[in-house]
């Protein structure tokens, strides 16, 4: 791990970059979706303007809200900021990287989910309970599925440190690992579930009874809502870059290696553009599942991940 100045510079650069670039990714996905639906697209910079507008507003809070309610948006933002610092977006061997491995990363996301569910239950209306209950229903299967998918990568590279995984997988000669293919498919399914995308949840719905994630943040407004929306964008960014690090890790620089940075940026931009377009395509082609088919969807992901792990052990591929 590089604890010297270039390493720390890389760390700060990556964290700030992710936080600033995440809304752009959301804008890109929305734009691709609009093109696919034959609508004229909003600008890719729209999320930034939306955030700015939200920050200017007065926060309207329910009378009986507890301190937990007001604290949660900041905690969520902090958790996502931490996740952005750990995932090797631009570079491996960052100073913060050894602080958390893939299991701790799943733990960070779980912490964020628990806090947002608690904040949802704080108001005391039926919608908050609805959102919290549904979110935990999806979360209780998504978390083990993601852990199993990441364990497959961990078994192949012999470590749970993201730095080591990226290093091992990027520098091996190109080989098709069926187990990684299964784990990748499972990871994609979990990405859709955890980031509240179709087919699990519709991020643009206005009907409260169909909401999962949106029902949890129904009471938030102004700067709290802005922080939560920003955290959601950073979460999607972190998930996508985590997928890249585990399954297509080429192009990631080493911390302190300034010459490799432009390549890293270019590779990241290309991967994100493709992934964002792919996400929009998936959202357009699939329909939202009935709520109680979501556990079946996610147990399918869980079984795929377990299958991938078994295939790794028994076929060594």
């Amino acid at each position, binding site marked *: 791990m590089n604890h010297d100045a270039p390493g720390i510079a890389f760390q700060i650069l990556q964290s700030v970059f992710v936080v600033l670039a995440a809304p752009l990714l959301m804008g890109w996905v929305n734009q691709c979706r609009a093109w696919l639906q034959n609508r004229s697209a909003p600008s890719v910079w729209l999320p930034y303007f939306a955030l700015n507008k939200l920050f200017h507003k007065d926060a309207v809070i329910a009378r009986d809200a507890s301190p937990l309610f007001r604290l949660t948006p900041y905690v969520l933002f902090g958790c996502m900021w931490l996740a952005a610092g750990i995932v090797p977006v631009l570079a491996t061997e960052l100073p913060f990287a050894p602080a958390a491995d893939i299991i701790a990363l799943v733990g960070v996301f779980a912490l964020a989910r628990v806090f947002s569910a608690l904040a949802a239950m704080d108001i005391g209306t039926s919608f908050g309970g609805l959102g919290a209950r549904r979110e935990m229903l999806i979360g209780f299967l998504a978390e083990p599925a993601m852990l199993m998918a990441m364990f497959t990568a961990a078994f192949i590279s012999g470590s749970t440190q993201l730095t080591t995984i990226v290093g091992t997988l990027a520098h091996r000669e190109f080989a098709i690992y069926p187990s990684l293919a299964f784990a990748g498919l499972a990871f994609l399914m979990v990405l859709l579930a955890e980031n509240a995308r179709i087919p699990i949840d519709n991020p643009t719905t206005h009907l409260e009874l169909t909401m999962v994630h949106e029902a949890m943040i129904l009471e938030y407004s102004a700067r709290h809502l802005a922080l939560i929306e920003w955290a959601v964008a950073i979460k999607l960014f972190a998930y996508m870059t985590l997928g890249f690090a585990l399954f297509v890790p080429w192009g990631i620089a080493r911390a302190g290696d300034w010459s490799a940075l432009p390549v890293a940026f270019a590779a990241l931009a290309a991967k994100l553009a493709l992934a964002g377009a792919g996400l929009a395509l998936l959202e357009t082609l699939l329909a939202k599942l009935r709520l109680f088919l979501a556990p*079946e969807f996610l147990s399918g992901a869980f*079984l795929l991940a377990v*299958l991938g792990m078994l295939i790794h052990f*028994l*076929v060594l591929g």
Partner: protein
Amino acid sequence: MTLASQIVNLLAALLLLIAFAMLSQRRILTLIHLLAWQGAALSASTLIVASSTAQPHLYWSAALTVVLKVILIPWVLHRLIDKLNVRWDVETLINIPTTMLIGIGLAIFAFALATPISQMANTLTRSTLGIALASVLLAFLMMIVRRKAVPQVIGFLAMENGLFFAATSATYGMPLVVELGVALDVLVGTFIFGIFFFHIREQFDSLEIRHMEKLKED
């Protein structure tokens, strides 16, 4: 591992995945499509083995598989379910998550069984023997838990797919004569099944197999 054996491993994994997917599918039309994909994966893997080990009779084998398992039999089944108007097999004997868990147990058992055997073989694809055995067992499981007759037939055909894959992976395929014979048997069998289905439907007005229990002597 060479590229050819890696691709064969990938196709084997795909085969196993399709076997699991068939366990969990409720729509019969999707089952037929999955069967067709399984046949395609099978012929692709036979083709690759043929090209990397220069065994000409495997080319014929692959061609036969494509014609029979990817085109002919799925088409026959398609027409069959159109005539019988069977679309969904909603209930299984035990629910789907439990079936999947049993399936995973069977897969581990099959792999454990196949490891010493595959260490003896010296073919290109020996590590896939376990997967072939697992697909056979999973197809058998599928036959057991289904309530309608058509998915049972599909399970039977999937079992045959698994056996074929086992043959290719252990011994580079059976002699061509044997293969032709087996293929003919499977084709004839499918036609006969079709005739039986009409009879069953006429007799019991439904294709659920538990009606056949009425035939026992009481």
